């Protein structure tokens, strides 16, 4: 049976979503995207800095990708909505990752404002993927608000600390009827595989790939890990046991 992954009614061919921040050169991005096999790629919107001329990142993302602007920099729902509308008006399409943050130390999202922004943008026809702190009640509110997926953090943004919120994400996977995409904090392919094995629909990775010594090779490693984790989930892992269970029969031993 074909393993179909859909977000907002659209079939997506890769369960590895990719961020474009922190690459040492934007010129790496096309090869990283291609190697990762990603179809959904995130970008951000910023005021221009007169001090230095930055290139338009969208030009480096292959044309067959879905560009998903994030609302980073937004401190409340109103600012997130404004950024999303601007990005769409600038030609970015309907997809948006809601990111509302006021905490500068851990960059943890404001779940309350995130729900408000999701409701407004979903009603305006956006495909809304909210980044959130894993919490079952908030996730249910995001479903009601019209989110297309729910994106809980594994650990703080850019920390490479892995799947620290595993038990809370497991609850979301069990209870929420939308794709659960683990976003933020995954630092190693093994952690992406772990998220996928437990039933996450996808993962979103940026820092771990962008800051690797060889981002292209790391993109391939994450791609394989995500595919392996998904296959393992579909294969249905055996139960864990507290004590050893012999793999061979416990009879017919060759001994006196």
């Amino acid at each position, binding site marked *: 049976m074909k393993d179909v992954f859909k977000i907002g009614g659209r079939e997506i061919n890769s369960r590895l979503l990719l961020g474009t921040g922190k690459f040492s050169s934007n010129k790496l*991005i096309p090869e990283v995207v291609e190697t990762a096999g990603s179809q959904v790629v995130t970008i951000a*919107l910023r005021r221009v800095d007169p001090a230095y001329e930055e290139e338009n990142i969208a030009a480096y993302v292959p044309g067959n990708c879905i560009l998903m602007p*994030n609302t980073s920099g937004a401190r409340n729902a109103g600012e997130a909505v404004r950024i999303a509308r601007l990005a769409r008006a600038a030609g970015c399409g309907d997809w948006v990752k809601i990111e509302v943050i006021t905490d500068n130390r851990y960059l943890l999202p404001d779940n309350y404002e995130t729900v408000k922004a999701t409701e407004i943008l979903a009603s305006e026809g956006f495909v809304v993927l909210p980044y959130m702190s894993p919490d079952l009640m908030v996730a249910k509110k995001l479903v009601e608000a019209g989110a297309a997926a729910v994106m809980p953090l594994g650990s703080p943004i850019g920390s490479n600390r892995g799947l620290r919120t595993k038990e809370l994400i497991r609850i979301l996977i069990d209870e929420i009827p939308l794709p659960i995409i683990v976003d933020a904090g995954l630092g190693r392919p093994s952690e992406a595989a772990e998220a996928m094995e437990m039933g996450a629909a996808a993962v979103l990775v940026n*820092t771990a790939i962008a800051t690797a010594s060889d981002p292209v090779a790391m993109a391939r490693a994450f791609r394989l890990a995500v595919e392996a984790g998904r296959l393992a989930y579909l294969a249905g892992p055996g139960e864990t046991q507290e004590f050893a269970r012999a793999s061979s029969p416990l009879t017919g031993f060759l001994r006196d």
Partner: protein
Amino acid sequence: MKIMLNGKEEFIEAGMTLDVFINLKGYNPEHIIIVYNSEIVSRESLAGFKMKDNDKIDLVKFVGGG
């Protein structure tokens, strides 16, 4: 007259058009998004677009992000 550029006050010649202003600032309109009083202005309409006192201009662009 006074305008707000990316959140900061600037004083410019009255009646200046957006194309002249963007050029004066050293930006290529092909590479940025011009937001005038919360509305995006198309590149084609920059030339005839007269700026007014107390208007707000944001010059933005897409950058890398996760």
